[in-house]
């Protein structure tokens, strides 16, 4: 006892503590111990779940001792659940299908693990060009990657109704669109199912129109840019289209807009490839007459702008079993499972890997096969698409995009002008103020 110095005692005590901690610490995997990964996603329709189960099974077979548990969250529930998870430290290993602005928001708060390793595992050359740029929030580091693309503002046309109205050319400009709608409207059919409700669809669709007018919501270094002619023009145009939308459009959101077109009540649609599956199931009669196109802009000199919310994959920074979590994230992109996932929502969730698009196994889906042109077009559109979090290749990532949408600043602008007939100058200045306050916060 007496030969031990104080230092020795302390070292031994610390060593003992460390040993005890190592034994007690969870997740220290010995060869025999089971590692459990938790996978969260809000996309959990039965068809998608089957695909997930397949991917989980193949991963578990390839990695004995690892168990993957899928836990469903939801589009309205995930903010609260993620907040609870981060606050308590009980985070899942992998989270998929959250919109890109959620990812950028969490990244900004330092909550996510850089995704570069996973992208390397998948093979950066396999991605469509620029598919990951929206996630390069801090230069050189990726906050996540997309697991699927969606062309949310694809224009859908009913060829039979166009023929009947004597229109042969696909509308390219706003005036042509308006004219086509005017001619096709009648006999219980409306021109467009544009949303005018106080919801995210209205905000997102209207942002597409602003870009279609050649404008933007924020400048590349994120100053508010709504006090512009383009913004005013798009408000005017959007208002002028109100007469071609069904009476209830003032409260339309995604579901109503989609069903308006699918049920045959409108001559044009504005939606993702979900249209294809829904038409096949709910109104197969019109299936042969549907085509998809890029949405018109104000004039032929303004390029098309596709909205893609880039459903994401991300890994929280404090996720347990990080190396295994990364392996699993990469596994989600393996062809056999990935194709199954894509086929669960054919045309709606599009591959981010151009290698997958080219595979015959991917194309061997009845809906994709029957609509090759539409699906290929949407894949390309979406791959070069943008959203409020990243409005153009020159823009800095906007980590407050989610909050801008949730504040309803933009959808309220539309409502004030279109429904309440407030003067345009007032609407624009109020909106600009609100956006500035949000960005400053």
């Amino acid at each position, binding site marked *: 006892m007496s030969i031990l110095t104080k230092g020795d005692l302390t070292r031994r005590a610390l060593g003992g503590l460390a040993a005890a901690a190592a034994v007690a610490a969870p997740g220290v995997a010995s060869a025999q111990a089971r590692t459990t990964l938790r996978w969260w996603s809000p996309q959990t329709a039965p068809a998608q779940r089957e695909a997930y189960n397949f991917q989980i099974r193949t991963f578990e077979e390839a990695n004995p001792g690892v168990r993957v548990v899928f836990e469903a969250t939801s589009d309205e529930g995930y*903010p*609260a659940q*993620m*907040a609870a998870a*981060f*606050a308590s430290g009980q985070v899942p290993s992998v989270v998929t299908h959250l919109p890109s602005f959620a990812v950028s*928001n*969490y990244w900004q*708060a330092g*909550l996510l693990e850089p995704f570069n390793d996973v992208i390397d595992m998948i093979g950066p050359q396999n991605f469509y060009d620029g598919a990951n740029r929206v996630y390069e929030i801090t230069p050189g580091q990726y906050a996540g990657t997309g697991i699927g693309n969606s062309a949310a503002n694809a224009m859908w046309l009913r060829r039979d109704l166009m023929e009947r109205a004597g229109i042969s050319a696909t509308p390219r400009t706003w005036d042509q669109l308006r004219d086509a709608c005017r001619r096709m409207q009648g006999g219980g059919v409306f021109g467009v199912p544009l949303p*005018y*409700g*106080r*919801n995210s669809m209205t905000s997102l669709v209207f942002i597409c129109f602003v870009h279609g007018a050649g404008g933007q919501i924020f400048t590349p270094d994120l100053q508010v840019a709504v006090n512009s002619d383009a913004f005013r023009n798009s408000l005017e145009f959007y208002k002028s289209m109100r007469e071609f939308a*069904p*009476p*209830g*459009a*003032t*409260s*339309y*959101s995604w579901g*109503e807009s989609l*069903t*308006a077109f699918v*049920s045959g*009540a409108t001559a044009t649609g504005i939606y993702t490839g979900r249209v294809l599956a829904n038409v096949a199931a709910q109104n197969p009669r019109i299936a042969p007459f549907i085509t998809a196109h890029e949405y018109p802009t104000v004039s032929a000199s303004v390029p098309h702008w596709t909205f893609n919310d880039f459903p994401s994959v991300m890994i929280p920074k404090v996720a347990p079993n990080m190396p295994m979590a990364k392996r699993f994230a990469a596994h989600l992109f393996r062809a056999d499972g990935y194709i199954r996932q894509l086929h669960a929502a054919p045309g709606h969730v599009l591959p981010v890997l151009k290698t997958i698009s080219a595979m015959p196994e991917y194309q061997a889906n009845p809906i994709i096969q029957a609509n090759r042109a539409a699906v290929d077009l949407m894949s390309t559109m979406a791959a070069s698409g943008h959203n409020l979090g990243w409005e153009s290749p020159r823009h800095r990532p906007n980590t407050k995009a*989610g*909050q801008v*949408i*949730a*504040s*309803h600043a933009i*959808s*309220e602008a539309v*409502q*004030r002008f279109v*429904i*309440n007939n407030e003067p345009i100058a007032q609407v624009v200045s109020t909106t600009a103020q609100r956006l500035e306050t*949000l960005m400053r*916060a």
Partner: protein
Amino acid sequence: MAAQHGTAAGQGNPLDHKDALLGVMLIAPTVLIFCAVIVYPLVSALYLSLFRIYTPTLQGNFVGFANYAELAGSPEFWRSLLNTAVWTVLTLTLQIVFGIAAALMLNQAMLFRSLARSLILFPYFVSTVVAVLVWRWLFNDLYGILNHAAMWAGILDMPLDWLGSMPNSMISIVLVGAWKYFPFVVIAVLARLQTIPEPLYEAARIDGAGAWSRFTDVTLPQLREVLVVVVLLRAIWDFKEFDLIYLLTGGGPVIATQTLPLMVYKEAFGLNEMGRASAVAVVMMLVMLVFMLLYLRVNRAQDQR
């Protein structure tokens, strides 16, 4: 010992004093659960309202009463408060009126009465989210059966925009709210109706009272205690209602149907401002508290008459 029970001294049954301990023991589990499960979240909410909190991390900095000051100067807040009051009063009134009427109806002999009772309760059984989705479908301008039936019957010649313009939006949510929750009143009132002694009605009938006076002179007074509680509980619940309004109109058009609970949700999870959301919630609580205290005081005064 006896001197401690100041207020009770000299009143009522002497047994009451001895049994005070038993009484306290009986209420103890309630109090325990209440303390254990509610006090911490409640105090948290009060505490968080003094901070600027970023929801995903629950971190932030102290701002004192800045959140409250912002609210006081925010037209959105005052409009939401007004909307909440309007919505609560209207839907509560309809819930009570329909509830009592339906309970009276279901208290009479009728064919397949048990089935009728179960069906009347259906709105309360069904999950709010599902009910609202179905109502949105029924209200739809293109394929909704309500518009279609009204046009077929000649009442309308164009589909009505039930949810997207005022005053339709407010009327629609009030009606759906009444439909959803009036069965609560039915259950409580029906249970109470069962225990009203028949001889009271017979005596009234012998005195020559008609159906309406039998209702106001016999039924209503008997229902009073239950109704007092039902009104209180329903008022609180309606004031806090979130799902129904959020899914039906989202608070629109613009903020014409935005109520305080919607504002709390928007701040907490849309704008990631947990501190401001807590401040709105605390204000809500204070409003309801004032109402509750006034209400109970008025009722106690009535009781003593």
